[in-house]
């Protein structure tokens, strides 16, 4: 997680100008997992202007990231190497007491398996995000994230400050960066690592590893804060802490129009859009 820095020669330790020189000499270093500022992406979908790019970041294995996205923005997540595990919290950025409601998301849509065309619903009956494209198909609405205790049991420890951070503690840090706290870390969804349910209720994890490059694209249907933790799925049976970097790219996009096929796909979903459109009727 932490980049290893070159050792500082002893004669620099007492010299602020030398320390400044040492610090500045690191500028421009390229790491596998880092944000790119200003954002650059050479693989934007056709028709997307590079000027509309708002976020380009590769999230470390075991790391997290968080971002406010505007209504209409597209968020593309790519599992770069086949073992990313993107657990996601979503808040209404304008009023964060409104947040993703996983139970309503599966109940209202009469289905528990996320994929193209599905909506992420808030606890206020509004569409928060919609899934525009999905080449993965293995996602999870049931199991949430690992916590300090589950990682301690599996890997020996699970602290943020150790080598095997857990999903919940990553969420806590990400939420805290928006002034949110323990009460706000709500049930989540996980993308790229999935579950399937057997008739007797048994949860079967689908953890791969999968082929590199699977992706999912979401559209923000309101002003949102997303918090993404990239830690091994809580039911990943592998003995080793196995997770690989996750790429996040976002760009500005038009607000969903009245004739949008995802908006109009089901009567329940249409009402979720009517409710979010009403929210913006000001």
């Amino acid at each position, binding site marked *: 997680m932490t980049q290893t820095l070159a050792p500082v020669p002893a004669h620099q330790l007492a010299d602020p100008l030398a320390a400044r020189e040492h610090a500045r000499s690191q500028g421009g270093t390229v790491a596998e997992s880092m944000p790119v500022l200003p954002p650059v992406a050479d693989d934007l979908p056709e028709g997307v202007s590079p000027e509309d790019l708002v976020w380009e970041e590769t999230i470390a294995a075991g790391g997290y990231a968080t971002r406010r996205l505007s209504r209409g923005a597209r968020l593309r997540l790519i599992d770069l190497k086949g073992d990313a595990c993107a657990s996601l919290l979503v808040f209404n950025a304008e009023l964060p*007491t409104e947040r993703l409601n996983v139970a309503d998301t599966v*109940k209202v849509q009469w289905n528990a398996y996320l994929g193209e065309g599905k909506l992420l619903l808030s606890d206020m009956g509004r569409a928060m995000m919609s899934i525009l494209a999905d080449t993965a198909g293995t996602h999870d609405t049931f199991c949430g994230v690992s916590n300090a205790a589950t990682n301690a049991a599996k890997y020996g420890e699970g602290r943020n400050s150790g080598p095997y951070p857990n999903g919940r503690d990553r969420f806590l840090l990400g939420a805290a960066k928006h002034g949110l706290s323990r009460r706000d870390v709500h*049930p989540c969804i996980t993308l790229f690592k999935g579950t399937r349910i057997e008739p007797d209720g048994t949860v079967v994890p689908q953890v791969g590893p999968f082929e590199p490059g699977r992706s999912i694209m979401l559209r923000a249907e309101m002003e949102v804060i997303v918090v993404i933790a990239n830690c091994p799925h809580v039911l990943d049976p592998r003995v080793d802490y196995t997770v690989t970097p996750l790429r996040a790219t976002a760009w500005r996009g038009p607000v969903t129009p009245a004739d949008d096929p995802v908006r109009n796909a089901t009567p329940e979903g249409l009402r979720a859009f009517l409710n979010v459109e009403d929210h913006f009727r000001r």
Partner: protein
Amino acid sequence: MNDPHLAGLPGAIVHDEVVPARAPWLHPVAKGQTLRIVDLEGNQAVDFLLYSAADDAERYSAQDTVAAQGNLFLREGTVLRSNEGRPMMTIAASAVPYHDTIGGACSCESNTLRYGHHTKSQHACVENFLEANLTQGRGKRDIVSNINFFMNVPVEPDGSLGIVDGLSAPGLTVDLRAEMDVVVVVSNCPQINNPCNAFNPTPVRMIVCA
């Protein structure tokens, strides 16, 4: 002791109350005590949340509970876990095969999605959860995915799910043993638009024993 609802209780009764149809209920249950819920008239969903009495930012987590047991259904022996992975209560006995924890609670807002905007003025479980939690300083941020005792939400192979006819019958019970000091918050579900209450909300009885 001719009351069949009291059969097999492990200790002396410290609280015994009938929660009217559609109403909220909040009560502390100390570590080691048992809460028995009696479905008095049958097929009544009991929407249920738990908070640690010592630190109410620690609360029931459906996802931690499901992940820990690798199964969606809450059965006799299921440990109800917190958002920090700790045991809060254990289902010590259940007269129905399983209970739900994926279906969530009805709300005025979700009712507009499921049934139409004409249902927005109907009473709903989230209203009950809010009303009860507000008496102790908790609010909207504290409402998370809940348990629905006596409610049946099967998941089909393609992921389809829905609230279907309940598994309960008049007088059936579930017993919950507290593994820490907890505050129980219940909504005796007022929903009339799906089969969770057989379209007819009815009272339930809550018995706490030492």
